[in-house]
């Protein structure tokens, strides 16, 4: 009997504590801006539940906006009837097809956005309408991406936040959620290997592995709000934003008109669009891994040029390596070769430059760069040879000197012995 009373009192105190705690939490949350919606909805299960923690990540919450900003209703009222009344403008769950216009109701309003961040663009919706996603949405397709699919909804973070789905390091993953799903993409008839390919690319490596945020991701070439694959004629324009020299050389090269006539997509023809691997010297030429032989065959002018260009690059590369090797050997033997090693940097520069000049697709152009590099490597190699010669000279000198010293020692030894024999 006592025990039952004890249990009741105990559980009563527990309940009081819990209620008090909830009250505190509730007041804490609404201490910034009262958001009565969260008070209940943070305790509800999916799909109605939005935890306090989730919503606190939202950049809108940080700017003082409540759930009512999108869902309507009255967030200052604790009474669910009054908070979620149609009279207060409550919209309930927002339908997918309503989302773009809902977001645009603020984000396309320059006057309104100025108050929060005057630097923010206000043409996202306009751009969206030109995109493939936007155009399909306009026709009633509810499976295409809308604002929340990429940006998130209740935990919507600023794009500069590394945890945001649209932070540069995460964009490819976000796009792949649909675009790598073969089942989902079936009605659209486009491939779903882009993400897998991108993961093998040098751009992915730069962005994700080396952390270079300026490296391209899906949106860099395709656009973000106005997402459209660049047209065949426009691909070069996109790549040339960063790869200036290669594009300039390409424009003046015989390939420009030839590719246009064949309907080839510029840079993508040789380098691929998503699986852009790190180019090697083997890509140029007539070898098994060369891209040139995809079009050029033995006997045509292009084939000869390709072979010539490959040979030139290979010459310079092996000359550079040979110089590195001999200078390394000299250095390990203790010779001072810092000056020619410094010069090697010039040869390296020439090699890098030559690999860009390839895009002029003219072996005479390329020759100018490789010859400059070879002039340097010739000098550095000679320096290396001289260093090794000097080393040999020193060893010979040492040997002779030691021999003479040994001679003297023997002489001294005998002299002493003779001296002391008496």
């Amino acid at each position: 009997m006592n025990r039952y009373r004890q249990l009741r009192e105990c559980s009563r105190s527990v309940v009081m504590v819990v209620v008090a705690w909830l009250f505190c939490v509730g007041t804490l949350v609404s201490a910034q801006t009262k958001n009565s919606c969260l008070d209940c909805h943070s305790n509800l299960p999916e799909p109605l539940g939005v935890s306090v923690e989730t919503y606190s990540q939202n950049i809108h919450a940080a700017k003082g906006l409540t759930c009512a900003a999108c869902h309507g209703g009255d967030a200052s009222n604790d009474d669910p009837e009054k908070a979620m009344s149609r009279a207060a403008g409550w919209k309930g769950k927002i339908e997918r097809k309503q989302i773009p216009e809902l977001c645009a109701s603020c984000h396309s309003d320059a006057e309104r956005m100025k108050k929060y961040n005057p630097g923010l663009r206000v043409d996202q919706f306009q751009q969206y309408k030109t995109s493939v996603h936007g155009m399909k949405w306009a026709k009633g397709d509810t499976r295409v991406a809308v604002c929340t699919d990429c940006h998130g909804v209740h935990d919507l973070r600023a794009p500069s936040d590394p945890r945001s789905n649209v932070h540069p390091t995460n964009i490819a993953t976000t796009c792949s959620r649909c675009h790598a799903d073969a089942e989902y993409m079936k009605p659209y008839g486009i491939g779903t290997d882009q993400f897998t390919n991108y993961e093998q690319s040098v751009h992915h490596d730069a962005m994700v592995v080396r952390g270079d945020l300026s490296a391209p991701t899906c949106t860099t070439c395709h656009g973000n709000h106005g997402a459209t694959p660049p047209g065949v004629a426009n691909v070069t324009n996109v790549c040339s934003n960063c790869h200036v020299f290669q594009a300039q050389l390409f424009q003046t090269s015989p390939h420009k008109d030839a590719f246009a006539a064949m309907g080839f997509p510029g840079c993508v023809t040789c380098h691929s669009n998503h699986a852009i691997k790190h180019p090697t010297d083997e890509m140029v030429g007539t070898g098994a891994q060369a891209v040139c032989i995809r079009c050029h065959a033995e006997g045509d002018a292009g084939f000869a040029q390709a072979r010539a260009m490959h040979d030139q690059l290979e010459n310079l590369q092996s000359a550079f390596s040979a110089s590195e090797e001999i200078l390394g050997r000299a250095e390990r033997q203790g010779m001072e070769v810092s000056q020619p090693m410094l010069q090697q940097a010039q040869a390296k520069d020439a090699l890098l430059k030559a690999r860009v000049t390839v895009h002029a697709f003219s072996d005479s152009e390329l020759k100018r760069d490789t010859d400059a590099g070879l002039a340097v490597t010739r000098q550095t190699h000679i320096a290396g040879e001289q260093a090794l010669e000097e080393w040999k000279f020193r060893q010979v000198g040492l040997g002779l000197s030691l021999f003479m010293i040994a001679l003297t020692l023997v002489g001294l030894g005998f002299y002493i012995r003779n001296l002391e024999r008496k």
Partner: protein
Amino acid sequence: MSSVPDVGVTDPSAPPDLPRRRLVNILLGTGLLASAAAFLYPIVRYLVPPKLPDLGGDAVLAARISELKPNTAKTFRFGTRPGLLIETASGEYRAMSATCTHLGCTVQYRPDLREIWCACHNGMYDLNGRNISGPPPRPLEAFEVQVRGDEIFVRRKQEA
């Protein structure tokens, strides 16, 4: 104090030099002379100065006046790194480090643009070395130029 005869005293009444003795003397003499020569030869060579322009303080002889024309430049060695000496179109000399502040490639002067350009990633610097376009994050270190006679010397900027 010693009862043993002094060691090493040659007895003047000893028989004349044995052939072996002469051999030893010759051996010793040759050895001494030869090793002395091997010792002195490098020292004598060392005393002769190498043919090099005098450093004259911490300045480096970058070029002669005759080597440059207006709106041209020359890359020279400055310490362990390359330097760039430019004669501007108006005849002024400018010198700066030729190591691009982006990833270390050697920059060059572009007479057509009248600016300094890095071929690796299209970085641009103005004639004062300030980075004006492209990836370079910092300006090129500027050096002091001194013209003595027909020689152009370059050295690090001195603190005031």
